[in-house]
């Protein structure tokens, strides 16, 4: 296997890592809540460095079931996530500049691990919020927890909650797919060459 990536691949990797800049300007994830009283829906947007949307209203409603108040400073992630994304962008650029196949491999492995860790962390917070409830809460349903769905839909009391990537998140996913695609294309191209040489 040749050690250098093709020029096209290097441009694509540069583009893919460059696209990560989107999460500095667009929210990465969103949770939407719909209820009979909220036909227009309540939205919480999760950024890499904070929260936006109807957080105060959601907190106001959550106090009935004894959920903790959601505030930005409770999440250490918001402090270091921008640096993590910056690191990935630099790494991607390094891949593009050097064109080293090995670096691309490392980049992809780290991307996979990063994505997995992010979802794990998100799940952990969701679990924590959904289960650690104030024992004096007004509404207590035995056996019921209020953990939001990791991804997809879940019915929580009168709310239909939806958890999906937001615009920034979709761009990250697209960028990751592109990077993996580059790897696959390189592999496929190489494979065919080897066959021909045989």
């Amino acid at each position, binding site marked *: 296997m040749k050690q250098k990536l093709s020029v096209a691949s290097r441009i694509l990797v540069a583009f893919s890592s460059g696209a990560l800049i989107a999460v500095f300007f667009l929210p990465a994830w969103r949770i939407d809540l719909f209820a009979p009283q909220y036909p227009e829906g309540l939205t919480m947007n999760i950024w890499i460095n904070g929260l936006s949307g*109807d957080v*105060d*209203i959601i907190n*106001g*409603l959550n106090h*009935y079931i004894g959920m903790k108040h959601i505030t930005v400073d409770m999440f250490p992630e918001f402090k270091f996530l921008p640096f993590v994304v910056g690191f990935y962008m630099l790494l991607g650029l390094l891949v593009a500049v050097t064109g080293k196949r090995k670096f691309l491999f490392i980049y992809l492995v780290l991307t996979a691990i990063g994505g997995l860790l992010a979802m794990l962390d998100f799940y952990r917070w969701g679990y924590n919020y959904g289960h650690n409830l104030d024992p004096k809460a*007004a*509404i207590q349903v035995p056996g019921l927890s209020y953990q939001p769905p990791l991804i997809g839909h879940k019915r929580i009391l009168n709310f239909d909650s939806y958890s999906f990537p937001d615009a920034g998140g979709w761009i990250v996913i697209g960028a990751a797919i592109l990077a993996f695609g580059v790897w696959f294309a390189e592999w496929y191209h190489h494979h065919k060459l080897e066959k021909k040489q045989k």
Partner: protein
Amino acid sequence: MKHYHLKSCIPLVIALVGLLWIPGCKPKGTQSAVSGNAASKVYVAPGKYDEFYNFVSGGFSGQMSVYGLPSGRLFRVIPVFSVDPEKGWGYSEETKPMLNTSHGFVPWDDLHHIALSVTGSEHDGRWAFGNANNTPRIARIDLKTFRTAEIIEIPNSAGNHSSPFITENSEYVVAGTRFSVPLGDKLDVPINTYKENFKGTVSFIGVDKTSGDMSIAFQILLPGINFDLARAGKGRSAGWFFFSCYNSEKANTLLEVNASQKDKDFIMAVNWKKAEAYAKAGKGVKKAVTYAHNKYDDAKHSATSTMMNEVLMLDPKDCPDMVYFMPCPKSPHGCDTDPTGEYIVGSGKLAAVIPVFSFAKIEAAIAAKNYDGEYDGIPVLKYEAVLHGEVKKPGLGPLHTEFDDKGNAYTSFFVSSEIVKWNVKTLEVIDRVPTYYSIGHLCVPGGPTKKPWGKYVIAYNKITKDRYLPTGPELTQSAQIYDISGEKMKLLLDFPTIGEPHYAEAIPADLIMKNSRKIFKIEENKNPYAALGDNNAKVERKGNEIHVYMTSIRSHFTPDNIEGVKLGETVYFHVTNLEQDWDVPHGFAVKGANNAELLIMPGETQTLKWTPEKVGVYPMYCTDFCSALHQEMQGYIRVSPGGANVPLTFSTGKTAPAATEKKDTTAKPN
């Protein structure tokens, strides 16, 4: 004798009973007036929106109501001139100044007419104006909040009926006095000296282009007659205002006879551009008067009332070419200008014809000084010279006229209880439909503007008799909506109204709904008594006043336990609704309060004044079903005897308030 008398009656009784059996001796019922597909034309499916907002005056209710068209569904009653305990209007400390006048606090009035703001004689959806007929005032309603933003009193006026009609770019709303009265210093005069001592005025109230703030620009001093209704010109006639006048006989008693003697009264034409120029040129005289100007501030969430003491009076004697009279048959009521501004329709309540005046002819008659003498020094134009023509045999008791977008006019007839459609140019009657019963005003969406939408005409009726299930002696008034998209008018729907509807206007929903406010931002709340957050809630003693800075959020008040109030003290509950979510008002009520509740919108602060008169523990609670735990949204306030030693304390969520003595007068949270 008696016996004989009875006997002779028997055949007569039999004959009368027999008459009862004669069938069909009655006019046809009203059911036949509705055609098959009427229901589908007014059916607005659940969750769907109406096409038009209909702003309907509440008449003697003093309020303005908002309906949807074509469904006829009632959305809101906007408190304007009358107190409304349901909304705390006129009861909360913040709203009381809105009802202040030179006569003090006036808790009721009679709102007759609506004028929606216009730009270029087309609706712009910014403000609705309404008049107070009894204690002369004009109110401006902000259509972002659907609340009364401003009320200005009109001095030198009595019975502000000819109001609040509006000029083409909302430069002015007008106020013509219905009663002429003695003015100035000579107020205590015999009533029968009417002819010498009584005067009329019309006022032009300037409206600020951006804020909408009103101020009386000038008044015009006029003969002692009665001003009834008015309309501004449009297009070429936009610089003019037309007022209908009755009682040119100058009667001061039994007007139904004495003011109906003359064959013709007047429509008064005022060149307001010229009047404005005269006012600017210093032709007016400043008169000492007293009137209140009340404004509501959406940031402070409170009103202020300012007493004004001067008004600029223009006398037509010093201002030539400003005012003219046009003879108009028999006590004209309605005075309406068509969408082009060329035609002015006068409706003599007792006249057999509808005269239509031509603006081009008015201009020509003025230029040629084609006068028919003077009335109190004001030139009277020759009837024939200014007349476009008369609608012959239109009906009985013509009152008001609205217009569609196809050159047709729709005139209401009180006596013959019908709407008559006629062509403005040809003056030919096209169609007539009955109303149930005795229509007063009528409304075509955009009808008074340059751009009528001409889809419906709505009749506002005075009498409903057999139209609805009976409710004792007092029956509802009603509106009826007719489809006017075709040649023939078709009755679609009846709907009951609040109070007594007089004039109404309708406007496409999209001109208003996009601007409708959802909440007040808590960070913009500048009420001096606001508690912006639970942590800022407190109770303070100032002399013999207790000020409670209270917050409300689903589903608790902070504080909700208050002790240390003494008999003889007055408690002010300043309640701030901390919600920032649409449609989550909180209410507040305390037992025994001699006023009303508060209804506090998200982000707003309102104050209830309460002077307890007995020792005890008083409950207080949220009155607006705010949440699943609304019923739990409650608290207590303890009132001790005058000399009691109970320290002033407050708390929320503490079961045992520490009743420690405190030296300073400000209470500390437990």
